[in-house]
């Protein structure tokens, strides 16, 4: 029972393989040896017109075609002209607007820059003027101080010189006898101070 079924199955398979092989061969043949299509035969005009009619119809068709072509050309040219003018006008408007806008923006920017520059220059001038005033005041002050210092130094030097001169000159020429009245007058002048000093010390 089992063997019969297997044999039946194998037979079916052989059949299928055979069918597939045949199909493959036919397609391969068709692929490598394609058949040229058969040229169709032109339709044979069955109605025959006289040559004058044919020429007149051809001339009419040519005239009509020419008129249509000229008309289309004129319309196309007209439309093109109008379109060109419109485009020019629009471009002119657009260009004018852009130029106006840019000019205004440029002028505004220039004005802002001018104001800023003027402000900076004014500030700088004010600062320079203030600085010059300060420098002048400081210079005057320094010159005055230096002048006073030199005068004081000169006075001190002269005072020292005169004091030294008097000290060196007079210390060997002291006459106490001539100074007695002066000394008594000095004591009288400072009598109260002297008495107070002695009383305080005691």
């Amino acid at each position: 029972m089992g063997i019969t079924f297997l044999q039946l199955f194998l037979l079916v398979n052989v059949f299928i393989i055979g069918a597939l092989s045949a199909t493959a061969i036919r397609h391969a043949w068709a692929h490598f040896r394609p058949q040229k299509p058969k040229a169709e035969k032109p339709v044979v005009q069955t109605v025959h017109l006289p040559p004058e009619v044919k020429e007149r119809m051809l001339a009419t068709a040519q005239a009509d075609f020419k008129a249509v072509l000229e008309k289309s050309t004129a319309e196309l040219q007209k439309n093109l002209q109008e379109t060109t003018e419109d485009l020019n006008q629009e471009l002119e408007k657009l260009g004018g607007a852009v130029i106006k806008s840019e000019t205004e923006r440029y002028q505004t920017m220039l004005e802002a820059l001018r104001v800023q520059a003027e402000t900076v220059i004014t500030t700088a001038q004010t600062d320079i003027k203030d600085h010059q005033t300060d420098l002048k005041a400081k210079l005057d002050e320094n010159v005055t101080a230096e002048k006073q210092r030199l005068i004081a130094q000169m006075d001190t030097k002269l005072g020292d010189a005169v004091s030294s001169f008097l000290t060196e000159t007079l210390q060997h020429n002291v006459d106490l006898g001539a100074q007695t009245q002066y000394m008594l007058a000095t004591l009288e002048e400072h009598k109260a101070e002297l008495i107070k000093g002695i009383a305080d010390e005691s």
Partner: protein
Amino acid sequence: MKARINLPDSVASLQDLTALMLEVREYTKWFSHNAILQRVSKKRVTRPMPLSPSASMLLRDWENIQPITVRSLDELIDILNLYKNTAPTITITLAAPATNDIKHTLIGWCRTNIAPNIMVAFGFNATLLGGMVVHHGSRIFDWSFRRQILNGRERFGEVLRRV
């Protein structure tokens, strides 16, 4: 000890006063010894000891106040000792060594105007140029020419500009 006596102007400093006290003590010893001798025998009297002018003047002034006795001389010594311990002392520095006349003048002025028993010592410093410097304790009164010149040197420029 209520009696007061003015010191001679020649007794200026504490050294002078100490010397005067020693002299008065010696005189007191001599006076006492001589008084004993007179009591024993009137013929045995020693020669009076030589005294300095200051001591002589002091004893004369003292004799005007009360008679000279051993007791009064002891009292005088006590007074001098009191002066030595309590009298104010000043030092006057001059530009040259002071002569006696100048010393007497300045001492007389001090004892007349400041205190009758004030002691005055003298010194000299040539750099003072003139005038005087008075010291008392820690106080110094500089009235010298040098100080005046130094104090006035700052005005020298002004004076020079005026000229």
